[in-house]
């Protein structure tokens, strides 16, 4: 029984990440009509920013930037006029501020959110009016760039991120041993998800947002700056992904490709749940995480594939998704 509860807990944790990510995807899709393929890469960035905040980061020195040695990857390439490129080795120095996990929970989503808003302003906004598929292709390209850059500098192996002292250890619940950090992830994710739901469904800002989703032209006529709202929405969705990344850093290690496979599962979650409802995304995310956890216990061979199989079944029975409107 212990193993069953343990797998259920793992399922709930994965479900938290599915919920946070699919929630962000749904919010972004509602406003921008874009399926954000870069969501997994931005989730990964959230974890990396948390890692940098805690452990510091190596940055090139000013001399290295000026003498061009940050281009050392081109060493050995022969060019017509310049000849074979030979640059001095890159000098780095370490910048460390040692901000704890708690700071990372706030700062990482903001930094990644700002990065996302820059992406939206510089690239995504030019796609409005084009077919949705171009948004998918563009964000796929962004994901390749971000993941590739991180892979170049950090390899493919994982970097450890320690559980904060306050959340170390565990408690005995009588029927199982609960590591505190894992319990914290589930509860905190649930709170964030419900908070986002409240923001969108119950506040004035959320009302503007929903109105702009339905009819942006009319909302603009009322004097609301819709393009700015679109940018902020993208920042919000991306920030949720980064938050999930910070939460997962102590559990899953920090890896450049940590979001690459996850985003495909989240796509399946989105297909199952449909993107019509915020609450639908949250519930579907958690439910599928739990089902995956149960599968790990009862039939581990299928734990990788169970979400995809469920997607096929849902498509056969109810093609529009469990909560979605037909498209």
């Amino acid at each position: 029984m212990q193993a069953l509860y343990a797998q259920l807990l793992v399922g709930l944790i994965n479900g938290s990440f599915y919920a946070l990510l699919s929630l962000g995807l749904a919010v972004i899709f509602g406003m921008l009509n874009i399926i954000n393929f870069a969501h997994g890469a931005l989730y990964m960035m959230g974890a990396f920013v948390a890692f940098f905040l805690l452990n510091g980061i190596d940055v090139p020195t000013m001399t290295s930037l000026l003498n061009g040695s940050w281009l050392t990857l081109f060493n050995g390439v022969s060019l017509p006029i310049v000849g074979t490129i030979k640059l001095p080795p890159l000098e780095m120095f370490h910048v460390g501020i040692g901000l704890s996990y708690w700071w990372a929970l706030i700062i990482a989503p903001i930094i990644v959110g700002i990065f996302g808003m820059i992406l939206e302003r510089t690239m995504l906004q030019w796609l409005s009016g084009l077919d949705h598929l171009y948004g998918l292709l563009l964000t796929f390209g962004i994901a390749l760039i971000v993941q590739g850059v991180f892979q170049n500098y950090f390899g493919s192996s994982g970097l450890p991120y320690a559980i904060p002292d306050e959340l170390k250890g565990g408690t005995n619940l009588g029927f199982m041993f609960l590591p505190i950090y894992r319990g914290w992830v589930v509860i905190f994710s649930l709170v964030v998800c419900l908070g986002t739901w409240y923001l969108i469904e119950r506040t004035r800002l959320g009302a503007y947002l929903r109105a702009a989703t339905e009819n942006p032209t009319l909302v603009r006529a009322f004097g609301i700056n819709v393009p700015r709202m679109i940018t902020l929405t993208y920042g919000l969705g991306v920030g949720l992904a980064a938050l999930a990344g910070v939460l997962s850093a102590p559990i899953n290690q920090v890896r450049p490709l940590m979001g690459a496979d996850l985003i495909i599962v989240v796509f399946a979650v989105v297909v199952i749940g449909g993107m019509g409802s915020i609450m639908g995304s949250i519930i579907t995310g958690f439910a599928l995480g739990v089902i995956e956890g149960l599968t790990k216990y009862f039939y581990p061979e299928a734990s990788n594939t169970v979400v995809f199989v469920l997607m096929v079944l849902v498509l056969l029975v109810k093609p529009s998704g469990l909560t979605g409107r037909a498209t």
Partner: protein
Amino acid sequence: MTAMTDDTLPVTARTIRDEMIAFGIMTALLLVVPLTGVYPFFVMQALCFALLACAFNLLIGYGGLLSFGHAMFLGTAGYFTAHALKVWGVTPELGILIGTAGAAGLGVITGVVAIRRQGIYFAMITLALSQLLYFIYLQTPFTHGEDGIQGIPQGYLIGIFNLANPTVLYYVILASFLFGFLVIFRTINSPFGEVLKSIRENEQRAISLGYKTDQYKLLAYILSGTLAGFAGSLKVFVAQNASLTDVHWSMSGEIVLMTLVGGLGTVFGPVVGAFVIIAMQQYLAGFGQWVTVIQGVIFVACVLAFRRGVVGEIAHYFRRSL
């Protein structure tokens, strides 16, 4: 479909004459390749990917369906052919048939599921289905997991052509590529192709005119998958292995990239795109992961500034359809 192809559509009506001339030039160029001393392995690999991209383009360019999981056909046909050749010891032509049939069967099964949704959902569903297949191939014993099936015998095609000879293999691959290309060319110029295009432009209207659009889309999907599988079977003879990379989502992304670079919805675009991308991978192989970054940059640049692709731009400039 709304604006997917609005700015990629040719200004003038398509003319078979222009396309036949272009086809003649392409065939002539490819026929003389072994005489030029270009590394034949590179061209053979590019031809397999060109056929794959053409098959993918049939779906997106003419049916308006973006499949983000076309690697599953490549990989499935590759595994089937490789297994048949190595373990069962069948002849090459039978191996190709088995691989292509496997891809066709996969097309029927996944097609029934995938065509239930359109647009963006179709892309996500095909991606998820191919990931499902990836995990299945990772776990089933006959694919040998991470190692893949290696050292596949090439044998004699119809008992005559020695496929271990690079020149013979080249012409066999070229003939197969041209065959697949002509099948696609015939399809898009048939009444069936016209209906597909009408579905791309306005599915509701096509339905109101009495076309069972789901059947057309399913048929196009199966045809595209079968031809992609044909390309995968051919690739086994070139690479002499079948591995998990062929089923991975990054391979699906590369297929999309090839078609995008060459020009979505153009007849010759995928061929040009495949050669461009394969050549790029060949020359930049030393840069490791930077190849991924460069591919990402090309994706972004194509979508933002270069939506017609290479062939699309040329065709637009000369006001022809290519």
